[in-house]
């Protein structure tokens, strides 16, 4: 599989400014990301996730090392449409409507107007924003802006998506929708590099993760490999408490460790979805 992203000894140091010391945002790292997969970029605040994404988007020049994106230098004009970058911050041009904003993006990446309009309408509908297409961005909630930001990234049908916290500020349904869309993109052969603090979301949709720590690549690999342990566990459902206690005693006798026997409970996320669906089904007054 061809590499969508390739970097050798890539490093970024922010120069000293006044009394602020120089900061090594990225220590020399080698990176190879194959096409057509979703890669999670994890790490604590200040670990270099956004800096790495900005380098790959052509917004930050590396201090040293080399990097190619889809075989080109990151700032190459041809990548403007082939690579989409969704920055974490607020959207610009907040006096525009959602539709006008997407039309601007389409024009900036040289998409023909008719094609841009059709894509914009389809994406607004896919992201649940069809009724807000003519509203000013100023009236949008944080979640709506996040969805629109993703719509803008998807508009030119890119081959590589660089997403910085695409689900921060989104409700669970929005997070689920973004997950679905990213998996559709992967199925269509698009490579996704996704920086996130939502570990469950990363675990659910990513094929591979990169873990950054103070600008260094602390770990990388397929989730199955990284999360696997030598210990086996037994998950049981449908027994009453006495049966559970007997099973626990048998497990202890076999040398196992019974961590806890507890009453089953619904996950908060499942409860939220159930309530949201019930509310949707109710006729509006």
């Amino acid at each position, binding site marked *: 599989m061809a590499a969508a992203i390739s970097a050798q000894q890539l490093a970024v140091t922010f120069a000293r400014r006044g009394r602020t010391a120089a900061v090594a945002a990225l220590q020399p790292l080698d990176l190879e990301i194959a096409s057509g997969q979703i890669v999670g970029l994890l790490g604590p605040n200040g670990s270099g996730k956004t800096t790495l994404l900005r380098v790959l988007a052509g917004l930050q020049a590396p201090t040293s090392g080399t990097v190619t994106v889809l075989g080109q230098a990151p700032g190459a004009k041809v990548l403007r449409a082939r690579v989409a970058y969704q920055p974490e911050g607020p959207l610009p041009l907040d006096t*525009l409507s959602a539709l006008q904003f997407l039309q*601007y993006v389409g024009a*900036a*990446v040289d998409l023909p107007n008719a094609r841009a309009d059709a894509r914009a309408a389809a994406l607004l509908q896919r992201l649940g924003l069809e009724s807000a297409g003519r509203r000013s961005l100023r009236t949008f909630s944080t979640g709506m802006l996040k969805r629109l930001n993703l719509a803008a990234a998807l508009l030119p049908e890119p081959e590589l998506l660089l997403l910085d916290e695409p689900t921060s500020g989104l409700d669970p349904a929005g997070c689920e929708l973004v997950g679905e869309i990213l998996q559709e993109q992967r199925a269509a052969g698009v490579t996704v590099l996704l920086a996130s603090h939502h570990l469950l979301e990363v675990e659910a949709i990513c094929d591979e993760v990169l873990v950054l720590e103070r600008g260094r690549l602390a770990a990388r690999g397929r989730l199955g490999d990284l999360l696997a342990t030598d210990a086996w566990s037994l998950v049981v459902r449908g027994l009453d408490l006495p049966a559970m206690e007997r099973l626990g005693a048998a497990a202890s006798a076999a040398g196992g460790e019974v961590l806890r026997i507890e009453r089953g409970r619904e996950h908060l996320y499942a409860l939220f979805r159930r309530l949201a669906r019930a509310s949707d089904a109710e006729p509006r007054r």
Partner: protein
Amino acid sequence: MTGRGPFRIVLRDCLAKATVPTLLAAAAAVAWPRLQPATGGVVAPGASAPALALPFLIAAFVCSLRTVRIWPLFALQRPGADFVQRLQGGPWRGRGAAIAAALTAQLLLTMPVALLLPGWLGAPALAHTTATLVAVGDPRLDRGHPQVTFRAPADVTWQRIALRAVVMLPDGPVRPTRLSLQAGGSELAGGLAPVGETGQRLVATFPPRQFTQVEVALVDGTLPLYFPPGAVEALSIEDRDNRGNAALAALIALLPTFTALALACLVGFVAALPTVTTVAASLLFVTTVGGVEPFGGAFRAVMRGEWLFGWEVFAAGLPLLTLGSLAMALAMVARTRLRA
């Protein structure tokens, strides 16, 4: 790109935000001279020049400051700057188009004002070429030096000369000075009112004729006169529609806006929005209200019916044009450097 790009976005925003303030300023300009105490029941048209300039000033301020606010690359750390920086091509990443849009919006708003307002404010319908005559030699006129010669541009048919001298102290008793005007040895105009005080304006009208030299001669009186630069002006016979003049004044009024936005474009590489806004607003203030030519002079000329088209106006605008162009060129270089 233009149809949905920065030009259209900024143009639409500037028009939306600047139309009402400009119209209000135009209404205030119409009302302002009527509220002034008139001398002898008449307000001199030249005195209404600040009122005429007001809508242009408002349009320039609103369009400039909206442009800096709307386009996120005019300052550091603006929301969504990364987004636009990555998508937007061109040597200025959309800033050039944004400036062009601001200028277009200002012109669209002010051109109707330029064509209609001067007439309401009492400006003459016709404009004439006006030339400031330059003294040859000593510009003092007294008994020991009874004639001062002034040079006029060639190939122009003149019909009027206006003089405004500085009166100095006489040696003896005070008697107002009477003058005559001659050109090529023959008298242009006699019977002028005697000059008794500094700033007194004399206007001599004569049958149209061409000349390149005018002699101002002392006929009678004891008050010595001094003619500082600009004290003697000649008006040509050619009648031109003053609306052309006003249209040029509207174009001239774009110069401060262009320069302010070009400088904002450059400063924005190292400064945040409050600083960039302050720089743009200060420059606009100095180049308009501050009396830096050609902004103020253009509206005075329209109100007086002095034909603006000519090298002098271009020369007066050249420093601002050069400053703005230089700032844009440096912004282009800075963009290339910072990208590396």
